[in-house]
């Protein structure tokens, strides 16, 4: 049995949008975007958004709901994702290592089928939408393993169909160029400029507390059930320094220094981490406003 996290990072795009409107910002960079549903919201409301992350599946999803302006999936294309296609060769035992540990035999077979099917879609946008939809199936299964009697048994293909259809509802255009890139935070900051920077610093030791639903789905996308987050983060800014408080604070200060040219800086944190983050932000910028709508959502808003 895997431990599923009780809490997840709360980023409220409606709130961020309100902040952007207040300061007249029309574009935004988020170098730690994670699952970019918040960037999708901002995009739909006319903001040019640019995201970056180290995990590839986040970036792929970004290609589906952030970069993609109009591609959706027709019924026959969804059908080609959710079930085995006659004549196609599948690596059905690719996720055998998870069988009996996290998933049933049938679920592991489907994970193998979907692994191949999403790679045969016609565009990056479609692939991103499919990855997002299937991730929700994956989460459903992990949750159901914990509470087998509380959640209905739904056939994998039906669940996948439902969630892929859900995902494509979010596709919209804002008539602006929106981008996502797989890169570490400093590279994203160097290569992209915008009116505002959204920065949600990962907690210290975040690697060791990451939600399994996040890294296991990267493992699925990589086709490697033995993948661990250390693989992805080993050479990143926070990966090597995540244990040492001083190094961690220097990393954040370095990012804020690099972000000096952004007219608007929004640092998202929460009550328990405010004491650590706020002095660093105030050290980097002269004008800092603390906006704390609730204990899980605190924004340090720095202006030039």
């Amino acid at each position, binding site marked *: 049995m895997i431990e599923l996290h009780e809490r997840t990072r709360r980023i409220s795009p409606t709130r961020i949008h309100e902040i952007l409107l207040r300061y007249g910002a029309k574009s935004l960079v988020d170098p730690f975007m994670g699952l970019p549903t918040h960037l999708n919201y901002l995009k739909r409301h006319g903001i040019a958004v640019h995201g970056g992350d180290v995990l590839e599946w986040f970036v792929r999803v970004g290609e589906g709901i952030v970069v993609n302006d109009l591609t959706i999936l027709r019924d026959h294309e969804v059908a080609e994702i959710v079930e085995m296609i006659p004549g196609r060769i599948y690596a059905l035992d690719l996720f055998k290592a998870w069988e009996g540990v996290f998933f049933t035999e049938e679920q592991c077979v489907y994970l193998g089928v979907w692994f191949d099917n999403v790679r045969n879609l016609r565009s990056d946008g479609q692939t991103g939408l499919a990855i997002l939809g299937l991730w*929700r199936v994956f989460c459903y299964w992990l949750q159901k393993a914990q509470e087998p009697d509380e959640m*209905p048994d739904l056939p994998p293909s039906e669940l996948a169909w439902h969630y892929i259809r859900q995902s494509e509802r979010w596709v919209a255009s804002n008539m602006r160029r929106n981008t996502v890139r797989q890169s570490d935070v400093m590279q994203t900051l160097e290569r992209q400029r915008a009116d505002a920077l959204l920065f949600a610093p990962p907690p210290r030791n975040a690697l060791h507390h990451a939600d399994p639903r996040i890294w296991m789905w990267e493992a699925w996308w990589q086709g490697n059930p033995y993948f661990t987050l250390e693989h992805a983060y080993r050479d990143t800014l926070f990966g090597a320094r995540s244990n040492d408080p001083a190094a961690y604070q220097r990393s954040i200060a370095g990012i804020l220094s690099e972000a000096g040219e952004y007219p608007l800086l929004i640092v998202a944190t929460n009550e328990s981490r405010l004491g650590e983050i706020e002095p660093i932000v105030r050290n980097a910028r002269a004008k800092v406003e603390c906006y704390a709508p609730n204990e*899980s959502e605190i924004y340090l808003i720095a202006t030039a």
Partner: protein
Amino acid sequence: MALFQEADGDPRVALDRLADVLSYYGAVGDAAAGLTFGFSLRKAAFARSIAEVLEVEASLLDAVSIAGLLHAVGAIGNPALVRENDLPERLATMERWDIPAAGARICAAIGALPERVADIVRWQAEAWDGTGFPDQLRWNGIPLPSVALALADRVVRAHEPEEALASIAEEAGRSFAPAHSRAFMLWFHRTGAEAEPFTFPRTALLADFSDPGDLLLDIADRIDRHLAVPGRARNVLRLAEASARALGCTAPEIEALRIAALTFGAGELGNGFESTLDPLVRLGLERRAEQAQAGARLLEGLPALAAAAPLVAARAEWFDGTGKPAGLARDVIPIGARILATAIAYDAIDIDTRARPAARRATAGERLDGAAGTHFDPRVVTAVLDAAKAHA
């Protein structure tokens, strides 16, 4: 704005008025969203009851109630719902996703509300699996009070309580956390899917409360923008109040008329739009009467606003007794209703005449004068025209 008469320094009167205006706001939100009358009251009652079983902090229960009441205020002015905004279905759906966020902004701007109400409204349509809107929060990132609202919404929308039970169980792990689904079942069996009727938690309103008159004016402005007749209520208010003074109406009559001028438009939400028809012809009279009744129903039962209900209800009556719905004639029609009907008609004709000067030969004054004695009270017509001239 000094819409109401002085409360003689009694803070309870102001608080009661504010509670009534907020209840009215909730009902207007329902109407704008196309929900049935009383939806928000039921949702507020169920949400509080469910929140107790979900073990929401006791200090937040009043906020849950108020959030349930104001759950749909964001629908007022939503681009997918406003008049003549014929959006493609996909785009309309996306616009509707913004209703909770718009509602949160409205709640946040009302200083008298408990702080958490806005966020409870904001996240009431989020889903456990992250497929909700507007923020696509997932798992336990969704606060419990908002979950209570979402569960209550299912109960109110269901034809039978068992239908809600089945749908919530079916969606455990998707729209709702399994634990929340379980808690709902507990609530269902413990209460028989019944809740105490909603009573406004007045003590939860902050001492530094908003002015109920200003709030009512803000609601009227939002309704007018929704109906694509911006500024109508203010125009009607100005004309009606000046006319009432000229006709020697009493202070309580003028107060009721002021409220009626700011609230009659709500009856048009979800009931077609009066302003698309010429107000001086009989065509559309049935519809106008329905709108008048719908508007009046929103005010009944709210002591601070109820005096305006008979005026709003009778605004489709004709002076000669051939109007709707009751066929009242002459002085049997309340003076406030006669003034209101005339002021509304003047405003509509005046706007139309100024917008399309070539299409009309007669001015608004000439046309209204022609309807005196049949449609309108001649004395009132004179007073309204004088008021219009004075403000020209």
